[in-house]
């Protein structure tokens, strides 16, 4: 199978280039990651991140034939050749398919991604009804792979000012949690021309999320809560 892979090693390459590889696959190779691991056994200089190989850790996000996705859950049969692999768009490239995710995590951290509830905890669990808990479905499952934020034109333009779909999804995860008492502070933190409102519902995030989540919908819900607070 033919692959065309983005190569860049700052120590020897003046600029990035695409390199073609023909990889002899085994009949058991199923996912794109299987092919990459096979390629690396032949040419160990090809650099990419990977870990769980089942779509739950979020390490091996990359741009696959023009669309962001996880290599470990991308079936080889769905890919047309040559399979063009590039690093996630919009983030600085460290080497080959490995990007510097600092900006992405900085935005995640900026939404205070932790439960805020300073009332003394009960001896047992804080009670939450099944319906209240259901509000967290479609939110807490995020794996922070960055497929969504790096597919978002608004994030490309303003990665320092726009929180991006992944961070906003998590912002709503805490707003939606019946146990969290900081909704007002969370909304204040997003109320500015960029942090939330740079989302123009382009929906690239929804298109690429490997977990089937819908950040655009949840961003809309934040805007709704904000509107309700204003009136």
């Amino acid at each position: 199978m033919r692959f065309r892979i983005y190569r860049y090693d700052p120590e020897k390459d003046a600029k990035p280039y695409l390199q073609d590889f023909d990889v002899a696959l085994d009949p058991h190779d199923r996912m794109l990651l299987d092919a990459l691991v096979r390629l690396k056994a032949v040419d160990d200089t090809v650099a990419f991140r990977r870990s769980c190989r089942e779509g739950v850790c979020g390490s091996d996000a990359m741009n696959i034939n023009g669309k962001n996705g996880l290599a470990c859950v991308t079936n080889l049969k769905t890919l047309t050749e040559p399979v063009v692999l590039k690093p996630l768009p919009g983030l600085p490239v460290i080497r080959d398919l490995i990007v510097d995710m600092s900006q992405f995590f900085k935005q995640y951290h900026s939404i205070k991604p932790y439960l805020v509830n300073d009332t003394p905890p009960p001896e047992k669990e804080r009670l939450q009804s099944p319906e209240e808990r259901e509000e967290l479905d479609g939110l807490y499952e995020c794996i922070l792979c960055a497929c969504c934020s790096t597919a978002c034109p608004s994030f490309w333009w303003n990665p320092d000012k726009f929180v991006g779909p992944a961070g906003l999804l998590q912002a709503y995860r805490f707003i939606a949690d019946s146990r969290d008492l900081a909704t007002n502070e969370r909304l204040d933190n997003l109320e500015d021309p960029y942090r939330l409102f740079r989302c123009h519902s382009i929906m690239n995030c929804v298109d690429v999320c490997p977990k089937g989540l819908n950040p655009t919908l949840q961003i809309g819900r934040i805007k709704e809560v904000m509107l309700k607070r204003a009136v």
Partner: protein
Amino acid sequence: MSLPVRKFDAIIVGAGGAGMRASLQLAEAGLSVAVLTKVFPTRSHTVAAQGGIGASLGNMSEDNWLWHMYDTIKGSDWLGDQDAIEYMCKIAPKVVYELEHFGMPFDRNPDGTIYQRPFGGHSANFGEKAVQRACAAADRTGHALVHTLYQRNVRARTQFFVEWMALDLVRDADGEVLGVVALEMETGEVMVLQAKATLFATGGAGRIFAASTNAFINTGDGLGMAARAGIPLEDMEMWQFHPTGVHGAGVLITEGVRGEGGILLNCNGERFMERYAPNLKDLASRDVVSRSMDQEIKEGRGCGPEKDHVLLKLDHLGPDVIIKRLPSIREIAIKFANVDPIREPIPVVPTIHYQMGGIPTNVNGQVVAPKGGSPNEVVPGFYAVGECACVSVHGANRLGTNSLLDIVVFGRAAGDFIVAQNLKAQAHRPLPRDAADRALARLARLDGAKSGERVPDVANALRKEMQAHCGVYRNQELLSEGVRKVMELDERSKRVAISDHSRTFNTARVEALELDNLMETAKATIVSAEARRESRGAQARSDYPSRDDVNWLKHTLWYSEGNRLDYKPVNLKPLTVDSFPPKARTY
């Protein structure tokens, strides 16, 4: 010494559940703590745990920590230390409530309490009937747990060193551990990180086997570092085969599927576990279910054209339960097995999953080793928790849900113990002149090797031999041959070469360094297995089919130097309650 040195009160290596539960205690107590991790914290393998965390909350029906303790001891086939097991089971409800208070999104019952599901080997009233003890967040409990702990560490402003690989321990002439030598992957820079307390939470090493549920990163780095520094590894022959790995892919299918009512079928459509474990059936202990499956396949009742797997049927649970309680399982089955479990069964085989053994510790997480006639002398400055450690709560076989419990209980306990040491008031001991020599020699050899075998070739050969010689059923002939082959591979591993010599994010170098750790773990495993001539828990010897409490109710200790073995007694004495003496183990 020419390497840069950075000093901290404490260093934690590994940022999965165990490392981050410990770092939380340290950071909240105001200590300067550095958490080193090969991958961004939420990518640690804790994230892949599915079914639940065990605690006798009693939310579904009556439960009792003593029953949990009994189940754990019985599950361990009496190789677990009863002091550690009592500590873990007794404190389990408290640590689960803490996780809930941290924001962990557990599933809920109509009354608002945490939802709990049945799991293998967990029973009410000392084995009488199955009990619902596994606190679950759908089938993503590990994901929910590791993200919650990361979030809580963000709040506590814990200092993470992301994509740093620890290479070797620093020990002085008195044997005190003073930190680690570490490699920053992005820049290739090597540094000494010095500390008054060094805690390993590096996880397991399932990648020594060919068919494993484990992530690529699970290469036994902590075990390799400890072994090279002269510290023994305990009970390394005890490796758990999870009954339900996806056939051909190895990806885990949680025991929670059987907890929710799923059943295993052979090619005749027979629910064969009824024959092997009449009481708990499909929810017997994992070693029992894996051996039963292996037996069915060996006797020609496997499924598929090769008759090499069995089927996990769950369509009778109905789409509502599957979509609500087991959504990720459905996703995995569709992606990795081409079946939608709402309609069709999932092809499964026993698959390497968990290492019960590890670096020997006590309940404070302090690493212990034999010295001067005592089997459990503390190694000063050194701690280990989670899968890389052997405290030992799992003995010869771990119960499902006890791994997530283990990491938070002992991560927390070690954190509290280190905080109580008042490290701020202590000075750093002087670094020995040769502190970094071992790590630097390993790097220099790799950088200097112009030709040699490729790393993946040796690593894959190792996995193949371990799979062939150290499987579900073992015997003397297989194991002796396995030891020989692994020792040959150990020699080959010293002659590998890499073609990538860049300093920038050199993943080939990382994999070569990981190979050293895989080798130490594999040697420990097969040498310990070859020597233990009995069947206990996960060590199933077809040539020694019975448990032998007279000769083998003891922990194995393997030393890398001289490839030698030692043994120490099992602690059958709990902290406060009566001992559970060994008895026959049936489900």
